[in-house]
């Protein structure tokens, strides 16, 4: 299996190797040649060319220096991408080890190649490039994909844990190492306290998100996910702030002792830097959200605006010596909510993918650098320092986890169990951040920089490989599941039913908001922020409109392929079958169980599925579509059985089944006021927003326009009760809807699938043909109402 998976990976990367070697060999003086003989030729040719005087125009030249940097960078990125493809082709590998492992290996490979050919790697990574170009995309991506609601619900715990944890770790490790350095036997006497503290701060920058993919299948609860995310998010920022402060200290106090005043100043600076960064980030977030309000006509620049403003927030914060990382994080978190609603669907997808791409590129490059540094001559090995660093990292992380959570558990409604804390402790995997900070230490201030780099590399390798690979089994072990016993079909069916039931009731309960603050923020948000930042005339959820379009397509496809007719429309025949109980062989039972397991619908996942390196395809969407369409069809079926369409009914009849217009609803004048209150009142995630199908006017499809047009007449119908007013009302409403500025939220809350039902039944009448046309005309008076509808097509 493994060989098979490596095969697609093999030949391609070998080709790439050869290509890289070609270039490496051609550019610098070649000391050792590698396998291919073609390289020799090239060499000879090149040597010949360079020995000639430069007056003649040579027919074939090679100008490698010109393209060296972008060329090699591109090759590295491609190599890493190919490795990732190979990695994911293998079925089980992604579940065994985190993807960082793979990237590190690729980096080491490239490093080996470069070292082996004695090639000077292009100086892509220096301080300014790292901090200005490589770091922001990574941070932006993690800030953008942070799920905001759980984040804010757990904000206190997260701040407490991430902030204090980072500080505790940094100072703990630093101090312990300093004590070790005092021991003369280790030969580390020249590393003073500041340097140790600095080392502690950079080694405590964890990247736990990298391991999330590994234990995704184990049902880790939402809170745990949130803590890990939150830590990853804030950790980078805090480490960098600390790092910068300590570097500033080191520069200042190269020769003097540190005074208490300076320490106080340092603390104050820490707070100012942190909060200032967040402040700027929030401001930029709002500005960019505001601007996206007006971009409906040039939706192509929407991603640009998002990225540029985030980047700008980073740069502005950096200019003022505030924390750019926290700024860009705050910007992403703030603007995400509003931008998502404002931008078009394609822009939204573009933004997501582009972010992933950028951060992936950055991270790849950093890991390649790490690989290059690993395999080189720039190491200084000191057993005591390195081993004790490892030990102290683990010890201090354990201390910080258990101590801090012990305290915060007192204040939490749902305390974290010891199992959760173990998972958090073990997920302290270091990543690219630590390496970069170590690499960028100024050599002048840190004469023993090589030692630090070596120690950092060892810690990273150890945590990523050993911890990364074993965390999966550990989590599975802690999350004891009864998988050994084969369940009977009964149990399986009933368990699944109960899971669905539980998920459904959970949805009914909604999310608890523990804090009054959150409610107050929501109110404030509704009253002011959304009015300013969100476009007018929007469907409240672009996801809902996406659903609509997808359902339409799916429905038509399903009908065409005849699937619908076989399952949903089949009339359940009464149990006229013989009651004899067939003797079923074990294989039959087995196969039945298999069918059941494979085909039952999955329960809605509450826990967030976040993968750092990948945007998950929406597999649950397919299931959701299927369910929705089937429900609609059963609905329609039950309609067919004996309930007539409402048009024929006199006004005032409550027709809750089919169209659920709230009859007690006040007249349009009062409607807008009420709109503001009950849209999105509690938990935009879980509630169905009122469906307004005045989508983005340019993209508005005929169907949707017609559909919303249809919605109004129903109400007027019920008020007036006569079909002839139908057409009039509709055109009038269309006019007023198309008019500018009018909040065209027509229906407070049409039933999600009932209105859809109408739309579909009308739209699909030609598609379905005879099958459904009968049901669309149950009564004579309906013909009247249908013809204007159909004519509009």
């Amino acid at each position: 299996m493994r060989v098979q998976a490596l095969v697609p990976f093999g030949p391609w990367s070998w080709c790439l190797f050869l290509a890289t070697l070609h270039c490496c060999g051609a550019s610098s003086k070649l000391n050792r040649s590698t396998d291919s003989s073609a390289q020799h030729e090239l060499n000879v040719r090149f040597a010949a060319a360079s020995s000639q005087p430069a007056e003649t125009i040579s027919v074939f030249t090679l100008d490698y220096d010109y393209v060296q940097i972008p060329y090699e960078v591109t090759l590295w990125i491609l190599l890493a991408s190919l490795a990732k493809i190979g990695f994911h082709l293998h079925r089980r590998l992604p579940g065994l080890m985190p993807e960082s492992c793979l990237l590190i290996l690729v980096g080491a490979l490239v490093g080996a190649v470069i070292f082996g050919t004695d090639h000077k790697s292009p100086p892509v990574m220096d301080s300014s490039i790292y901090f200005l170009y490589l770091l922001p995309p990574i941070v932006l991506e993690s800030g953008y994909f942070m799920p905001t609601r759980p984040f804010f619900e757990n904000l206190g715990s997260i701040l407490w844990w991430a902030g204090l944890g980072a500080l505790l770790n940094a100072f703990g490790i630093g101090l312990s190492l300093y004590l070790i350095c005092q021991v003369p036997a280790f030969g580390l006497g020249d590393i003073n306290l500041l340097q140790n503290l600095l080392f502690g701060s950079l080694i405590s920058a964890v990247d736990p998100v990298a391991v999330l993919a590994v234990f995704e299948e184990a049902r880790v609860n939402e809170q745990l996910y949130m803590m890990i995310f939150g830590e990853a998010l804030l950790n980078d920022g805090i480490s960098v702030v600390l790092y910068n402060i300590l570097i500033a200290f080191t520069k200042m106090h190269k020769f003097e002792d540190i005074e208490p005043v300076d320490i106080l100043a340092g603390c104050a600076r820490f707070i100012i830097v942190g909060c200032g960064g967040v402040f700027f980030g929030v401001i930029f977030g709002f500005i960019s959200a505001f601007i996206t309000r007006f971009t409906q006509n040039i939706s192509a620049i929407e991603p640009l605006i998002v990225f540029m403003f985030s980047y700008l927030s980073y740069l502005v914060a950096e200019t003022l010596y505030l924390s750019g990382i926290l700024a860009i994080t705050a910007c992403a978190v703030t603007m995400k909510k509003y931008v998502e609603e404002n931008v078009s669907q394609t822009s939204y997808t573009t933004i997501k993918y582009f972010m992933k791409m950028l951060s992936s590129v950055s991270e790849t490059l950093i890991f390649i650098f790490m690989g290059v540094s690993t395999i080189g001559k720039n190491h200084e090995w000191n057993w005591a320092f390195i081993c004790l660093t490892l030990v102290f990292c683990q010890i201090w992380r354990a201390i910080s986890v258990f101590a801090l959570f012990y305290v915060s558990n007192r204040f939490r409604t749902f305390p974290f169990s010891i199992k959760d804390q173990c998972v958090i402790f073990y997920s302290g995997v270091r990543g690219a951040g630590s390496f970069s900070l170590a690499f960028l230490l100024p050599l002048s201030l840190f004469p023993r920089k090589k030692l630090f780099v070596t120690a950092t590399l060892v810690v990273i390798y150890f945590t990523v490989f050993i911890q990364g690979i074993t965390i999966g089994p550990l989590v599975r072990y802690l999350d004891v599941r009864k998988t050994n016993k084969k369940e009977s079909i009964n149990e399986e069916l009933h368990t699944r039913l109960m899971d669905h039931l539980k998920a459904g009731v959970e949805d009914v309960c909604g999310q608890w908001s523990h804090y009054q603050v959150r409610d107050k923020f929501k109110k404030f948000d509704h009253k002011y922020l959304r009015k300013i930042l969100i476009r007018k005339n929007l469907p409240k959820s672009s996801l809902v409109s996406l659903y609509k379009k997808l359902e339409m397509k799916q429905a038509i496809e399903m009908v065409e392929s005849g699937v619908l007719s076989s399952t949903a429309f089949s009339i359940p025949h009464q149990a006229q079958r013989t009651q004899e109980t067939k003797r079923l062989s074990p294989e039959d039972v087995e196969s039945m169980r298999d069918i059941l397991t494979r085909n039952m619908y999955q329960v809605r996942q509450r826990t967030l599925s976040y993968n750092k390196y990948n945007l998950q395809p929406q597999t649950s969407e397919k299931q959701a579509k299927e369910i929705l369409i089937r429900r609609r069809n059963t609905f329609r079926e039950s309609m067919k059985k004996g309930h007539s369409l409402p048009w024929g009914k006199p006004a005032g009849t409550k027709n809750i089944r089919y169209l659920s217009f709230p009859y007690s609803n006040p007249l349009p004048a009062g409607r807008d006021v009420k709109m503001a209150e009950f849209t999105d009142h509690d938990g935009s995630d879980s509630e169905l927003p009122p469906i307004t199908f005045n989508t983005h006017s340019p993209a508005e499809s005929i169907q949707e326009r017609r559909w919303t047009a249809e919605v109004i007449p129903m109400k007027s119908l019920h008020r007036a009760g006569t079909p002839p007013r139908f057409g009039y009302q509709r055109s009038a409403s269309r006019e007023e809807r198309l008019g500018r500025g009018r909040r065209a939220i027509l229906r407070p809350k049409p039933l999600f699938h009932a209105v859809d039902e109408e739309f579909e039944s009308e739209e699909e009448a030609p598609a379905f043909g005879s099958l459904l046309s009968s049901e669309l005309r149950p009564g004579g008076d309906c013909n009247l109402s249908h013809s204007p509808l159909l004519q509009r097509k």
Partner: protein
Amino acid sequence: MGSRSSHAARIPDVDSIRRETGFSQASLLRLYHRFRALDRTGKGYLSRMDLQQIEALAVNPLGDRIIDSFFPDGSLRLDFPGFVRVLAHFRPVDEEEDGNRDPKEPEPLNSRMNKLRFAFQLYDLDRDGKISRHEMLQVLRLMVGVQVTEEQLESIADRTVQEADEDGDGAVSFLEFTKSLEKMNIEQKMSIRILK
């Protein structure tokens, strides 16, 4: 805290509800807020439509049945006590509470039996106390994707009923249902953590 108690006072019959369901004051308050939030038009009760507004329920295969279970006896209005009564079935079981219970009082709503009874009524639509083969087939159809053919579904339904049916009447009574699930940890499966 002051505002909290005034809210609590607004819940009608709060004490009797507490006794019946066993929810804490805080939980009841949160549920009341949720009830009010779901009741968008401020009617004071919930209709089916209000529950159907919950988007996640629309994509739950059993969404309709779950909503129906909130409206026992075909009523059209769901008031707060009814709402809480249904949710009380999902309250996590508290062991010590079980031990201190007065045996003369009726079983608490979140006992194992009551949880099972609640699940049972999702199957048994006609409320005759038995899950017929037909009802089992309907549930299966709801829960399984479209790729499974009708014959396969029928044979699975047959097998399910056959496995559980002990007295051979071709239907699964409530007792047979409980017996088939005796090894399952119902208390954990049908408990929602936040409803403590």
